[in-house]
């Protein structure tokens, strides 16, 4: 009797584990940054394969540390993305426009453009005309390419390949 129950529990635990593994292999995720970079290698120094847009859906095909090798759902490109640029939530780009079936709960949907957004910022600026965003825009325009960063690391005798990411 006890043996029987023990086996049942063990089996359900095992199936749960297997389910998780299968789920991970086919996991579909969304790009949650404005401009996601698909790279040739799992590194921020990796060359760009393609630029991904906010809300793009990708299929995770492999992982290495904090990096995921993904394929665009149309199968066009493959490359590496850092996991902090990805979310398991589905992102709806425009409010009211939904291709999400009823099986997806609200918790699984990130509503892009909703909440604190450009429209709210515009309203806030209207209420606070003394605040200037000119330099915020200017500083956001400063870009550093992977080549510049690689050169900075190499010439400065710094460490290469010691990537961040959640331990």
């Amino acid at each position, binding site marked *: 009797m006890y043996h029987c129950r023990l086996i049942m529990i063990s089996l359900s635990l095992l199936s749960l584990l297997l389910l998780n593994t299968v789920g991970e292999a086919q996991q579909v995720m969304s790009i949650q940054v404005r401009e996601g970079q698909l790279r040739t290698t799992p590194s921020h120094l990796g060359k760009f394969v393609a630029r991904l847009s906010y809300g793009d859906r990708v299929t995770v095909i492999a992982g290495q540390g904090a990096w995921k090798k993904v394929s665009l759902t149309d199968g066009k490109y493959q490359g590496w993305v850092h996991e902090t*640029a990805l979310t398991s939530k589905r992102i709806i780009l425009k409010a009211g426009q939904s291709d999400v079936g009823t099986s997806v709960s609200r918790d699984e949907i990130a509503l892009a453009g909703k909440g604190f957004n450009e429209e709210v910022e515009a309203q806030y600026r209207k*209420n606070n005309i003394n605040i200037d965003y000119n330099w915020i825009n200017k500083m956001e325009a400063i870009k550093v390419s992977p080549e510049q960063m690689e050169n900075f690391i190499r010439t400065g005798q710094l460490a290469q390949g010691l990537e961040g990411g959640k331990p």
Partner: protein
Amino acid sequence: MNKLIWRQSLIFVLLLSFLGCAAVETVTTVATDVAVHTGKISRQQADSIRKGTAAVSKSLEDFTPEQEYYIGRSVGAVVLNKYQPLANTKVNSYLNLLGQTLAQASDMPELFGGYHFLALDSDDINAFATPGGHIFITRGLIRCCRTEDALAAVLAHEIGHIQLRHGMRAIEKARITEALTILAQEGAKSFGSQAISQLTQAFGGAIADITNTMINSGYSRAYEYQADAAAVVILQRTGYNPGALSEMLHVMAKQIKPGGTDFAKTHPSPQNRIAELQAAGKSFAVSQTPAIRKERFVKAIGQL
């Protein structure tokens, strides 16, 4: 028989641990919300309960990186209302090259709009980091840095505040609940003007919470020590001398003016930060910075 029961319990506990973590967080968030609303516990008590279950981050995670970016832009604009930017391309390019190299080695290398750095034209010793990845550093604080490694330590400390989401945690819980409630009510429909005005009010409140904390009251000592610890890890990952943080703090200790409205007011004293680093085993000996790093550091910011 006893052995069997023991084995079963073990399996049961294992199963629970697989399934339980996320559920406990959600339950705690809901339970503490209800308790606050019914007046059973204060907001502070609720916060501490949530911290225990890591559920604070759960409620903050309901904000998308896009929303944190917009919060960050306005927090940055308010900072620039108090401090003039230093319009020096050479200095700002160097700060971004150094800062973005450090950021990619942090635990949060990807933000909605990325990391961006700007020098401020002030002799105050001050620095700010917004939840959107905007990092500001005054000329006064840059002058406390004698090497690229020391400047890296300062920027890494600010990146630490972002990766630990200290700015977002400065927002009053009630405001977070308010904003998330408006979002939940509206579902996937588009917003009416009343919702926009309510959201703008919550937004303005959030900006005020963060900027008041950063500029006036300062984060808790615990947050500053956490950011220092994060900075040391980032320095180690990028190959900078991790002892550069203590080195910079020693210089700051000599230059900081007691009673000032800058770091003197918002941060634990440099001496206390050094002591905390030592206590945490994160204090390292200062080593020689390679000549090439000295050269480019002087070239970029030597005129300041």
